[in-house]
């Protein structure tokens, strides 16, 4: 049985929009919302901050990069939400975590000063603060095609053996500037260092997230195609700019 797009709806949860929202990552929310609405799919946006309850029925959960201070401020609250987030992740809820939130979805983040911030262990990885900031335009090769973005982090992330990276680095540093991996994915949970914001110039990946969320909720779906000529033009330009 297939449901008509016009009868569908999605609940998108934005985690810590105040504390973790640097480098335009809020654009990911807008990309998901608009690309759903342009197809007649209703979208309910829920902003979830410190002390707020995770709403029932979340279909997509997103989180952005933040400053070190932001990570410190949210860590206790995140631990409080951790059991629920872990349950939602294993239940197949689609999640996209960028940079700082990506790090905290791993097991731990050890800052440059040696302080250990506990992660929630959804992704099989650990991060340590490095001395060198990894900054610049990026290109990754992923299962969802070529992904362009911009990275800006000093955290060095190492995936567990056998863990699935989000992609391979074509240009840039990715997880650690050494092993060529970038990001991580487990089931429907994606973590990446890519700002840009990552979904706006990589519409095929934005649609992949929407498709997975709708599939989980409604069974087999086919997304109507959109005119992505502007998105793809911006993508093409990004591949040609200096690091």
């Amino acid at each position, binding site marked *: 049985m297939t449901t008509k797009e016009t009868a569908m709806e999605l609940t998108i949860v934005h985690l810590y929009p105040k504390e973790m929202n640097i480098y335009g990552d809020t654009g990911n929310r807008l990309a998901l919302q608009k690309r759903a609405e342009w197809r007649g799919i209703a979208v309910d946006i829920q902003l979830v901050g410190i002390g707020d309850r995770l709403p029932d029925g979340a279909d997509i959960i997103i989180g952005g990069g933040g400053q070190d201070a932001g990570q410190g401020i949210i860590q206790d609250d995140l631990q409080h939400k951790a059991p629920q987030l872990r349950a939602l992740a294993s239940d197949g809820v689609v999640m996209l975590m960028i940079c700082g939130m990506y790090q905290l979805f791993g097991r731990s983040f050890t800052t440059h000063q040696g302080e250990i911030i506990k992660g929630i262990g959804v992704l099989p990885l650990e991060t340590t603060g490095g001395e060198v900031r990894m900054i610049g335009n990026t290109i990754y090769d992923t299962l969802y095609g070529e992904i362009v973005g911009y990275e800006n982090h000093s955290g060095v992330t190492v995936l567990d053996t056998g863990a699935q990276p989000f992609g391979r680095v074509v240009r840039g540093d990715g997880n650690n500037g050494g092993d060529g991996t970038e990001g991580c994915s487990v089931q429907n949970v994606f973590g990446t260092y890519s700002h840009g914001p990552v979904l706006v*110039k990589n519409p095929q990946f934005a649609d992949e997230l929407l498709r997975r969320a709708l599939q989980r909720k409604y069974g087999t779906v086919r997304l109507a195609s959109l005119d992505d000529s502007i998105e793809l033009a*911006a993508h093409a330009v990004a591949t040609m700019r200096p690091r």
Partner: protein
Amino acid sequence: MQLISIAIGKFIFRLLRLFGRTGSALPGLVIEKLNPHFLPTLLRQLPYGVIVVSGTNGKTTTTKISTALLESQGLRVLTNRTGSNFVRGIISVVIDKARWNSELPYDIAIFEQDEAHAVRFAHQVKPRGVVILNVMRDQMDRFGEIDTTRQMLQQLVSAATDWVTLNANDERVSHLQAAPNVKTYWYAHSKELQPDFLTDDQLYHAESVAYHLAAQPTVLLTGYTDCDVSLTIRGKKRHYEYALQGGHNALNLTAAMTLLCAVVPKYNETKLKATLRELQPAFGRGEIITLPSGGSLTLQLVKNPGGFTQALRMLELKTYSVIGIAINDDYPDGRDVSWLWDVDFSNLSSQPSILCGGTRAADMANRLKYDDCKNMAVEGAIPEYATILDATVAQAKGEAILFCTYTAMRKLRALYLGNRSGLDEEDVDI
């Protein structure tokens, strides 16, 4: 050693001018390597000392207004007019303006500096006064994070020997601490004007637009239109004619007036009034230029979400028939264009068309698409974009405005004004 340095520096200037170059950083670069004590020694002559203006947005305009206000009171002011932020740029200015006998015929120097350069400068020259305007997200691909920026400004404030001028509305700025014997002169806008001015945190947490006032300000901005401004200065209400556009420039004026109160407490009101009436915007900061085909274009520099958001409010004060946005991602602009997604463009959605230009024209058009704008024209190459914009303005026969990043502004300005641009292309060094 100073005499030799000046001679070498001036000689390089002459050589450069022979080849048709004006205002280059090269003499400063050479002397910086040759004689590290040059700058502090020369600047020590100034009876009123050195003032540094820093912060994320408004440095150039505030420095320009401050210079005019101090000059109105008869002071001879040395300044880096082109906004050349590097220490070597300032050394070049000093070499150019010093006499051959190393005398510096000025009373006071006022230099604008971005956070990182200001710290380097203050290591060499202790500023008598420091003005900090605001801390917003800007160029984070260079400085890392906004808290790093704040720490750099703290180092600068700590270096001030006599006084600092701080924005009492900006929480990050108002937490900066000057040394014990240093006097703080605050400036602020009134509570009624709060909706016009969002600080960085307010920009990102729409629900917390509480009015912040760290201390009683020396100068308070209470109102502005496109032709005047109302201030309360040391408790007295004042009203001045002045023609710079936008609330951000009114607040820059407020900062400059506070600086004037710190440097010349008993200033002459009549001379001040006359100067304020004649103020012109700094280049590319609300500057109105005449296009080759005769139309007029307001150039408004945009560098970060806070500044762009503030600049878009200019559209509420005036109707423009053509709107252009030119976004470059060269080093001085910041390589990362993610910040465009932190600006709300939904008030442009009713525009019939928007001309997007610059290396990241497609990114800009894409950004506008997601705020429901339609009919974006995209031309990445600046020379072609300049032609299209000129033709569109000529056809529309109304006022036009262009929001542009730094290098896009410099290039378009040079293309439109040619020799009249008054700036050397080599100055692009922020």
